[in-house]
């Protein structure tokens, strides 16, 4: 991948990758760091990347790996620094691209918030799969590749996550 192609990718996937980082880290500063480190790492590795071959998966796999490696050292900063939880401030956006009527908007906002909170409560193993599937729109095969786990494991984690979420969100989604 050339420098120009990487720049295009950064532009094209910034929302996808950044949303993922924020949901993974639950913290603005950490999300910024992770996002930055992901692309800096990608910069180092760009020769190994092929532009035509789903670079998004590649960025996501880098982000996950960096996050796992760093997670423990964040604990220091968490202890000394005031962590800005994202969950609370997500009220500022609706999670909707189309513009529904005002009443719908408020109801949907509530609903989406409840769903996101339920996802946040999932164990990280399940949460990453859910984010990759629903947020990043990856196929189960792509998730397997990104996380370096067998497809069967992806399916079983997705199944577990859905089971938990359905139970928790039954009223919100079907009610």
């Amino acid at each position, binding site marked *: 991948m050339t*420098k120009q192609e*990487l*720049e295009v990718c*950064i532009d094209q996937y*910034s*929302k*996808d990758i*950044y*949303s*993922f980082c*924020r*949901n993974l880290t639950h913290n603005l500063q950490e999300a*910024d760091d992770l*996002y*930055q*480190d992901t*692309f*800096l*790492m990608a*910069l*180092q*590795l760009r020769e*190994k990347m092929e532009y035509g071959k789903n670079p998004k998966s590649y960025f996501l*796999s*880098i982000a996950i*790996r960096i996050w*796992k*490696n*760093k997670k*423990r*050292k964040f*604990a*220091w*900063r968490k*202890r*000394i*620094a*005031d962590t800005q939880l994202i969950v609370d401030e997500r009220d500022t*956006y609706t*999670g*909707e*691209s189309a513009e529904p009527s005002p009443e719908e908007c408020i109801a*949907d906002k509530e*609903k*989406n918030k409840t*769903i*996101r909170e339920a*996802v946040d409560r999932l164990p990280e193993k399940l949460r990453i799969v*859910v*984010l990759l599937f*629903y*947020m*990043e*729109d990856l196929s189960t095969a792509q998730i397997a590749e990104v996380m*370096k786990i067998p497809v069967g494991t992806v399916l079983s984690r997705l199944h577990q996550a*859905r089971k938990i*979420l*359905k139970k928790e969100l039954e009223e919100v*989604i*079907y009610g």
Partner: protein
Amino acid sequence: MDKRFDDALRRALAPNDEVNQRLKQKILHCVEEQGTMAEKQKMKLSVAAMAAVFLLCVSSVTVYGAWKYMSSSDIAGRVQDRKLAEAFRSEHAQNINEAQCYGEYRVTLLGIISGELLSEYPHYHADGSIDADRTYAVVAIENTDGTPMPDTSEESYGELEFFASPLICGYNPAWVNIANMSGNFTDITEEGILYRLLECDSVEIFADHDLYLCVSDGMFYNTEAYLYDELTGKISRNEEYEGLNALFSLPMDPSGANPEAAAEYMAGLGTEPDILTEKLYVELEGTFEVEASEGNEKGAAAAEYALQFVGNPYVWGEDSLTEGTDSSGFTMSVYGYLGISLPHSASGQRESGTEVDALENAKPGDLVFYETPSHVAIYIGDDMVVHAMPKTGICISEVDFDTIAEIRRMEPE
């Protein structure tokens, strides 16, 4: 699959978080800059570049020669930091290779280097500027019984907790350690040995102090594993501690010391947002008065007297209310003025007077001791204390800005 459920989740999780422009610009700028740099390096180091293994698929490597450990330089290469690998091979790096065994672990300090812009991945300040001057060190940790350490991708790695940090003689290690010094680390397991590459702000400016590197169990600075002598400033292993508490002396060239920069650094330490910040700086309302009650005249006088020095500096080991004092020097001098003589050490002061059973019963003038070793403050009433703090100088804080260990009344009954 259930379409309604899937749609609801897709909508709720739609990636809508925008990257702020500054961050985006910074990354694009890095691509511009480093992109051209990498290009040039590639010409020169093409063999090395081909041999470099991507962090995502780190596999076992050949150990060179008979030497058991990988070198600091190899480890830097492992995390894709060619510049740092080069630096570790330079004459500025110190290869130490000293081993210590405590608890169930053998820890080997492989090497350390301090300097400007040594790494390909610079550390950024919160304002986006580069934090140029950094210290890097590599330690190897292994089980003494020979069982391999878990790979960093294994679940059991998450259960292991080590804390490795440079420490500086004269500065309380509970305050001044890697966690506060913009520190970071990366762990790699190779051939059953866990290597940790750690980095933090450069300790070279403190080269006129004794410098240490501690490696203990626990995720944070382990106050049980080490002893801090607040009078001499010396840091030592707690011999009675049964876990891991290795402590290496770092050989430093005193000529690299820069006391001015060191003082400035210490003054700025912890200016980042801090849980305690809100509780640490309290402005007294104009109407605030130290409440004197019967039998507590001396205490009230002490609190009253102490308050006039707010804003004066903190200097470790000193006891001048105007030129600089540490926390226990502050309490000593305040009470000394009132004719009650106390030892300089906080632990000695904790032996003095009588214990107050609860915060509700605290009166102005009582000494409040904290879990942070050897920190002591004077209670002034209304849940506030006045004290000398390394970061802030003499200031007023909420009494619970840190965990309270004990409250004692100095006034003779």
